[in-house]
């Protein structure tokens, strides 16, 4: 079924990408002024004696040349060890492990909502181009694209609190597996906020693909067979439009991962975005490195998945 050679070369490429990401993040972090000591002690780090400073530098491993640090880190990663957080001493692996599900669920749920909404609206607009419904949906999608996420996020949080006395519960993250309603009460609203821009993008792509596909020769063939408009729409136009939509969803998913930084901040969700943001301001190298690597892995995986999906949907790319 699968084309193993393709998969092999694809995986190799992914690996090289990840290695590149590792090196880049490592180097970039070290070009930023400030280090773990000033980050964890703040202005108090000025009170350190040289001996204290040296012992702390040794403790954090920042007294070694950077390539030695890089090598130590990479070999650690190879063993599944992402190091220890400089700020709270926890293992990065455990920090990432506890925040990863939040972000993944947030991103997946927004992607699902966004795709569903976007496709439905896109078809609605695309099947009657130029009509009022088309202009309306297009207008709405533009507004959706244009509102900054943090404005929308704040607005939603405020509105929920003021009008419904509701605050998305932010205690410990409740995994979907332990309580669906508890989980949803935390994830649903931020997902909706993230889904808005996502849906807007999907809607626009769907619409233009729909309009384009509707002109395709095979659609004319299908109409020529006397099929009902509904059938033509679902089995011919939409089916072919799925490929660009899937591709877009893949690319957008990457942006979603980035978008979680702000949304997790506003909705106080303990996800990767927040972990990352806090770690950056704290110069918590191991955490930043670990988080970025995991996000990159996610991104690469999603793209791989999209490629796979793409190959599954599109018979032309399927291995013979």
């Amino acid at each position: 079924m699968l084309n193993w050679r393709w998969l092999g070369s694809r995986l190799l490429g992914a690996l090289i990408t990840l290695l590149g990401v590792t090196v880049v993040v490592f180097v970039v972090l070290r070009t930023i002024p400030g280090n773990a000591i000033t980050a964890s002690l703040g202005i108090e780090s000025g009170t350190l004696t040289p001996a204290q400073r040296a012992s702390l530098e040794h403790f954090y491993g920042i007294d070694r040349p950077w390539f030695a640090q890089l090598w130590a880190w990479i070999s650690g990663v190879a063993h599944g060890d992402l190091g220890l957080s400089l700020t709270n001493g926890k293992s990065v692996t455990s920090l990432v492990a506890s925040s990863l599900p939040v972000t993944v669920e947030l991103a997946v749920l927004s992607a699902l909502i966004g795709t569903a909404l976007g496709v439905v609206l896109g078809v609605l607009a695309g099947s009657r181009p130029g009509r009022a419904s088309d202009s309306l949906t297009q207008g709405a999608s533009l507004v959706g694209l244009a509102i900054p996420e943090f404005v929308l996020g704040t607005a939603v949080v405020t509105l929920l609190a003021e009008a419904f006395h509701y605050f998305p519960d932010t205690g410990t993250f409740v995994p979907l597996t332990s309580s669906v309603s508890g989980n949803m009460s935390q994830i649903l609203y931020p997902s909706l906020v993230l889904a808005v821009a996502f849906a807007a993008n999907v809607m626009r792509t769907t619409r233009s693909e729909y309009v384009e596909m509707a002109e395709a020769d095979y659609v004319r063939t299908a109409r020529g067979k006397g099929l009902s408009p509904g059938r033509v729409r679902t089995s011919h136009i939409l089916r072919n439009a799925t490929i660009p939509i899937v591709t877009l969803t893949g690319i957008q998913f990457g942006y979603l991962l980035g978008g979680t930084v702000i949304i997790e901040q506003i909705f106080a969700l303990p996800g990767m975005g927040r972990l990352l943001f806090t770690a950056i301001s704290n110069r918590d190298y191991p955490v930043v490195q670990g988080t970025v690597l995991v996000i990159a892995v996610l991104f690469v995986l999603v793209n791989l998945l999209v490629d796979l999906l793409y190959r599954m949907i599109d018979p032309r790319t399927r291995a013979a």
Partner: protein
Amino acid sequence: MSVLPTVAEPIGSVPTAPGRSWLLARIWQDRNGRIGLIVILLLAVVAVLGAFGVLPHDPIAQHPAARLQGPSSRYWFGTDQFGRDIAARAAVGIWTSLRVAIVSVAAAAVIGSILGISAGFFRGWVDQVVSRFVDILFAFPAILLALAVVSALGSGWQNTAIAIAVVYTPIFARVSRGPTLAVGTAEYIKAQRVLGTPLPRILLRHVLPNVSAPIVVQVTLALSWAILTESALSFLGLGTRPPTPSLGLMVSDARNTVATAWWTLAFPALAIVIAVIALNLLGDGLRSALDPRRDSRA
């Protein structure tokens, strides 16, 4: 001598009169493009007014006595927590935001397109290297890239622009690589090679103009994202350096005053929304203006 007559009568009919205004005229024909163009032009006029300080109020001067005043005939859009005129600030803010967006997108478009066109045209190892590089940049969360750049360089509009440029460079590389792959094998490029046209000339005169359509469309979209990214960075405290007003900064500052003074948020946010929508509409217009299929008929 010749057995054939030369065709002397005028050739067919001329569909469109080509000229400098060609693109604008075509955008104008598209409803979305027309709206986008008008709004962008209006915003540009406002921005230029702001940039040259031809406004009734100083956007930076503080009037502590007139803090947080609502819209009035004196202060059209009200004042902020320092008693600064929001209308003036919004005008300059449009200028700053546009400036950040334009500089960053221009840089990203130039660098990204050079990368993408080289990859698509030369293929082979050039393509491998560029594509890998692009993949790596893509795999980074965009906001992290921006954060890292701004943290390393410090804030300020130039650095914000650099950060945004770094984020969008890979997009332009991707967008230009695809069409270049196609254009690179097109017959008119082969024709140039057979004719012995030197490579740089082929790239500059024949490849570039023919892959420019998706790049140009991308530019308008990237401009709109850049405005949003600038505001997101400002929200995280890493955007434009105060007191220079930028729309993003105004919106994120206004989060603190919105409950008591809605106008502090409403007007700058509206400006962002309008600018982003207009740029997207312009993008639609460009897309349709540059669509080769529009010409293939009639």
